[in-house]
């Protein structure tokens, strides 16, 4: 029973990673860049939701929506100002710019809201679901997080596979030049991708802060790096891969904390990543791309 309860809380944590990893993987798939500022968009989302709830007293759902709007706008603005002028530049220049944006957001947040930790209000009445006559207790928050993640996954899959914009996104991921020739506005598609990824980051921010209720300027770094790991783990560029990678990473982390060592959980997570990459370099669900001569 203990194992089952760890598995479920691992799925809860993994769902958050999965939602963040979707942002990394979609941007990588289409813009072919590692957006290291994604973690800090999460942090801004957390602050937005925090202020919406505490200072403006908005209900939870409305706060989440507001936070999503803030993050979406932020994501699109970052892309326009910082990344768009670098379309033709080397990958490294884009990477350094993303790092610059990350520093900018972190230090901006520190200036505006100080580096002291703020306590995130709870979004759910506490308590947990008791199953099997009280032998298995599952927190409502884990259940909510898993459900949200499933909903996000279903919506995103439908969007990418069924709509015209989704088709254009897949075309851009496949071959940007060819997509341009077919009359697809590639810049617009990249903006939409950033908008979706950043909007999802806001959802992840609220769920993450509901589980670990403290808000501070470097909040996004660790979940950002872990979600990036999850995206690579599942096969970067692949949406189901990010989903699977996120969930597995959450489960591995929770089980490692429970059965091996709390302090070493991070080391174990990253060691598993290295092992997976050694066995299957393209990640669990990634496609193998052969180089053309």
């Amino acid at each position, binding site marked *: 029973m203990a194992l089952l309860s760890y598995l479920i809380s691992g799925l809860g944590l993994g769902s958050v990673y999965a939602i963040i990893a979707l942002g990394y993987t979609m941007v990588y798939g289409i813009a072919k860049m590692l957006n290291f500022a994604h973690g800090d968009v999460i942090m801004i989302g957390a602050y937005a939701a925090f202020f919406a709830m505490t200072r403006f007293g908005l209900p939870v759902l409305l706060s989440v929506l507001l936070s999503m709007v803030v993050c979406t706008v932020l994501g699109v603005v970052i892309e326009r100002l910082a990344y768009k*002028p670098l379309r*033709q530049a080397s990958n*490294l220049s884009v990477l*350094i710019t993303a790092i610059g944006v990350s520093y900018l957001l972190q230090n901006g947040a520190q200036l505006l809201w100080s580096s002291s930790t703020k306590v995130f209000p709870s979004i759910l009445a506490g308590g947990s679901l008791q199953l099997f006559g009280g032998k298995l207790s599952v927190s409502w928050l884990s259940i909510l997080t898993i459900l949200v993640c499933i909903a996000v996954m279903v919506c995103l899959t439908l969007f990418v596979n069924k709509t015209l914009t989704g088709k254009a996104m897949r075309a851009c991921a496949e071959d940007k030049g060819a997509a341009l020739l077919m009359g697809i506005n590639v810049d617009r598609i990249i903006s939409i991708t950033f908008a979706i990824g950043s909007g999802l980051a806001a959802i992840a921010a609220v769920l993450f802060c509901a589980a670990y209720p403290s808000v501070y300027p470097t909040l996004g770094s660790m979940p950002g790096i872990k979600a990036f790991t999850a995206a690579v783990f599942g096969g970067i560029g692949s949406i189901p891969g990010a989903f699977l990678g996120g969930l597995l990473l959450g489960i591995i982390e929770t089980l490692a904390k429970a059965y091996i060592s709390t*302090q070493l959980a991070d080391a174990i997570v*990253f060691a598993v990543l290295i092992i997976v990459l050694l066995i299957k370099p393209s990640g669990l669900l990634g496609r193998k791309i052969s180089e053309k001569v």
Partner: protein
Amino acid sequence: MGNLFKKMFSRENRGRTASYLIIIIAYIVLEIMRLSGNMTNLLSSLLVPVCCYITAAIALNLNVGFSGELNLGQGGFMGVGAFTAVVVSGSLAGVIPNPVIRLILAMIAGAVLAGAVGWLIGIPVLKLQGDYLAIVTLAFGQIIKSLITNLYVGLDKNGMHFSFVDNHLNLAEGGKVLISGPMGATGTERIATFTAGAVLILIALTIVYNLIRSRHGRAIMAARDNRIAAESVGIHIANTKMLAVVISAALAGAAGALFGLNNASLAASKFDFNLSILILVYVVLGGLGNLNGTIIATTVLVLLPELLRSLQDYRMLIYAVILIVIMLVSNNEKMKTGLERLRRKTGKGADSHA
């Protein structure tokens, strides 16, 4: 003599001579300033760290610039070097009282261990194509930080004691704790000197310059420029890239060793992802494959936040903005063509190994 002079300033040696001159002149000037007491405490406390960062950045440039492999774990290699050096120096304190010999031994130990770790990472990764070295070194940096954070090392009359995760050192009376888990290295004897730092940079420059001019160095750059063409002329890609990774890791280890012995206490969290990124920023802003650029960019970027100290809270914000603006401007098409035209007018042509 005249011949040597001509050779030193010939076109292909100009960059190299400039590197050595920058370091030697800067060393002499700073050392005179320091000894005559004309240096602020802040500046003198930055001397050794700047040397460490420059060495680590030169090493990373070998990886990113010359070998074309992104390495996001340079901080991890420095961490390996630093904590190896702390243990070696601490345990030899009774045997070898001379701090200079102890420092040299500790730095060699740090370099050897970091190089060995680089080799271990390289074996599986370099067989693959793509950004795998970047991801695996990123993961490695996290793992190393987490492992050292849980490491306890102590020394007493019965020898060395190691302990992992929980502190069970059980030192005898008079024993000394060298590494204490999350606290990191404590009570380290500060034996690092500015002279050692300057010598380390000169050694790093000599190694990298000689390597890239050698047969192996040309193979490294050929593998970067066109993997398939390089393979077709008989270059073993994995072995060639491995050479760059191991040398880079070893130099970073030596730099870390010097860094570790410059601080009385040092936590493993210093050697995190941010440090790796910071060094990468130095390399990219200095110019890939340009060691003079690396030296200047590192010095300026280490000093910049300190010089901006009067702006207090805004300094890191300004730093971030400068970083973004430099990237946007240097990649601006109009700027690029303008610079190219200027270069052609002055007749210098493109840099030989840019």
